[in-house]
């Protein structure tokens, strides 16, 4: 036991190493939590704006419109669209003719009396 103890006899005072001194230029400054919160809020605001921006763009509408148009043309023009450009032009005219929705008529009460 003593033999082993002799071999591993490390002086205890030497185990605690002195902490290296960080140069003042590299030391991390203590950040103000208010500034962190402000930056976080701005970031969130920007993110929500981007989300709104994407949601307002008509990409999904455009694709759904296109698919609607395709569906409409396939329903309204039963004849297959051949290679003939006149047939294609005629089908386009037919689609225009059948897809137009007139201006609706609204009715209101003119005299709001007692």
């Amino acid at each position, binding site marked *: 036991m003593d033999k082993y103890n002799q071999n591993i006899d490390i002086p205890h005072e030497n185990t605690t190493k002195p902490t290296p001194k960080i140069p003042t230029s590299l030391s991390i400054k203590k950040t103000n939590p208010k500034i962190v919160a402000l930056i976080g809020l701005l970031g969130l605001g920007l993110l929500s704006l981007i989300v*709104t921006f994407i949601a307002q763009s008509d990409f999904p509408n455009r694709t759904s419109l296109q698919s609607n148009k395709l569906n409409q043309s396939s329903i309204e023009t039963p004849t297959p669209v051949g290679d003939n450009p006149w047939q294609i032009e005629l089908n386009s005219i037919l689609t225009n003719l059948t897809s137009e929705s007139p201006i609706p008529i609204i009715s209101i009460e003119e005299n709001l009396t*007692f």
Partner: protein
Amino acid sequence: MIYLIILFFLFFKPNPLLGQNLISQYQTDLSYQQDLYNQSYDTYSQKKIIHQQYNSIATESELINAIKDTIQFRNSLLIAYLNLITTKLDIYKHQDSSSVTSTIQNILNQQNQWLQTQSAKISLISNKSQIDQYNQQFSQNYQQIQQYTNNAIIQSQINYQNSIIVQIKNLMLKIKASPNFDSQAQNWILEIESQLNLSSDLTYQASLLIKTDTLESYRDYSSFYLEAKPHLDSSKQNLLKVVENIQGVIKKFI
């Protein structure tokens, strides 16, 4: 920098509201405003019954507020309606060689502005006599609004059908130029052309029913679109037959 980015996202939207997109937006707005108006009108009707029953200062005050709300929603509904109509007229406006479409749009824009100015005045109404005064003024303007919305409905369909007629005429010119175009095809095309002229005549008859003058004798502007509708419907049915006949020509001769 962040503020600049925020400003960019606020003011520069990627989709310019043009044409069909704008129309579908106005249509959505119109149905939304229609719902609001219907709700406020129902409330007004209920308050009117209650006031007629109890006739107190409290019920009168509630009725005045209900009328003011209904007037406000009615104005918003009409503004949405005029926005939709004037934008719809823009689509086939180029088919109108006369100035009728522009005249209709100008009048409707003026009425739109008038309605907007009135919306600001409604909050100042506080008693029965002011409501009566407002009703009188509204009736005068509404007569012109009715007249020109009817005109617009007719004119927009005329312009649209005329654009179809032009498209068909252009296609027929191309067909006529085909090397396979023989005398039999010529007879078919002549028949189709006379059918097409019938549609032109019908839209012309509908155009005669547009009333841009203020006629003292003509008091009811609420339904004169219904007088033009049979002509426009016949013309559209006729155009469908024309398209069917051209399809026959293309299949047989080309």
